[in-house]
């Protein structure tokens, strides 16, 4: 190594590591600040796009009226209204898939039938579990009444056609919808 380096005395080592860490801290804090707003915006946009996609036309702002139930702290309810009349709910729900959390937004009409579903975020195996985001899989849930349509894959005695080679991901999808339907039954209808 070159001779013009600082010698490795105790004082030098402490000083330099402290200096480098301090500069790194400032750089990170700055980046965090700058990207904070766009990152929050990405989340909001995602939620709003999902709401529009899965609910009938509404004229309130469901994001402002969102609420949670004490029994289901992870689930977020977004009531949709038109002319002050409730026309349905969107529920943000979650379950554990093959490799992490799967967040799904599901819409229910006033009769508590499933209107539509949308995957907000997932980390499933690309090409297998990720097919849950496709219409081909999600179409089977539309218009179903969770009281009759058993939200389980056929392998487990339910009514859902699982994705090929991605049973665990399909189970996670059903589980998330099931949670939402149960929560809605319990308290969303107020």
């Amino acid at each position, binding site marked *: *190594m*070159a001779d*013009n*380096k*600082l*010698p*490795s*005395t105790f004082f*030098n*080592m402490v000083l*330099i*590591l402290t200096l*480098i*860490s301090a500069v*790194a801290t400032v*750089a*990170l804090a700055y*980046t*965090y600040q700058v*990207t904070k707003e*766009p*990152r929050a915006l*990405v989340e909001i946009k*995602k939620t709003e796009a999902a709401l529009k996609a899965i609910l009938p036309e509404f004229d309130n702002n469901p994001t402002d009226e969102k609420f949670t139930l004490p029994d289901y702290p992870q689930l977020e309810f977004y009531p949709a209204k038109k002319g002050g009349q409730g026309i349905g709910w969107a529920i943000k729900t979650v379950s554990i898939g093959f490799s*992490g959390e799967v967040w799904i937004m599901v819409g229910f009409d006033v009769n508590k039938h499933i209107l539509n579903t949308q995957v907000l*975020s997932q*980390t499933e*195996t*690309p*090409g*297998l579990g990720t097919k849950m985001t496709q219409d*081909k899989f999600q179409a089977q849930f539309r218009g179903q009444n969770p009281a009759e349509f058993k939200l389980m894959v056929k392998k487990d005695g339910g009514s859902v056609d699982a994705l090929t*080679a991605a049973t665990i991901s399909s189970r996670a999808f059903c589980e998330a919808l099931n949670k939402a339907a149960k929560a809605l039954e319990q308290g969303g209808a107020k």
Partner: protein
Amino acid sequence: MNLAKELYRGIVKENPTFVLLIGMCPPLGVTNTVINGMGMGLATTAVLIGSNMVLALIKNIIPDKVRLPAFLVVIASFVTMIDLSMGAYVPDLHAQLGVFIPLIVVNCIILARAEAYASKNGVMASAVDGLVIGLGFTIALMIIGVVRELLGSGSIFNIPLLAEDATTILIFILPAGAFIAMGFLIAAINKLLKRFQ
């Protein structure tokens, strides 16, 4: 310094993935599609250029005994900055690459370049080194991505080439397929290089 020569060095002669065989986790983990491979490669390139430049700049004030912790603080800071920026500006790709972005910190290509190159060379030379090695890495990830996406999903750049219900070779999307694809690619590339030289 001859840029063309440097590019040849980074992409062919010292290609980190196919020739040096270092930093093998991302080539196996995120190359199931070409886009994922490219995103990972470019993110790594950005970290490489940044960390190489900063480390070349401060190499003389780092006492030898604490150089590894010092390197790692710099590298980890760059990775976190890239991670935050990708979350803000390319959220879809960021969601796809998931945990692999923070793991760039422990990619040994970056520490290897810091130790072997940036701590002995000037700022500009180190930036060029980061660029060419990063490009070599990116191209390697994309080549593996092409093979795996084509065989496993029947598409390229997410553009389907087969009918939707066509049978594809599923194993190529899974990690085992990455090993198979990479083994054959390394063999082919070494054969080509030998003939070429």
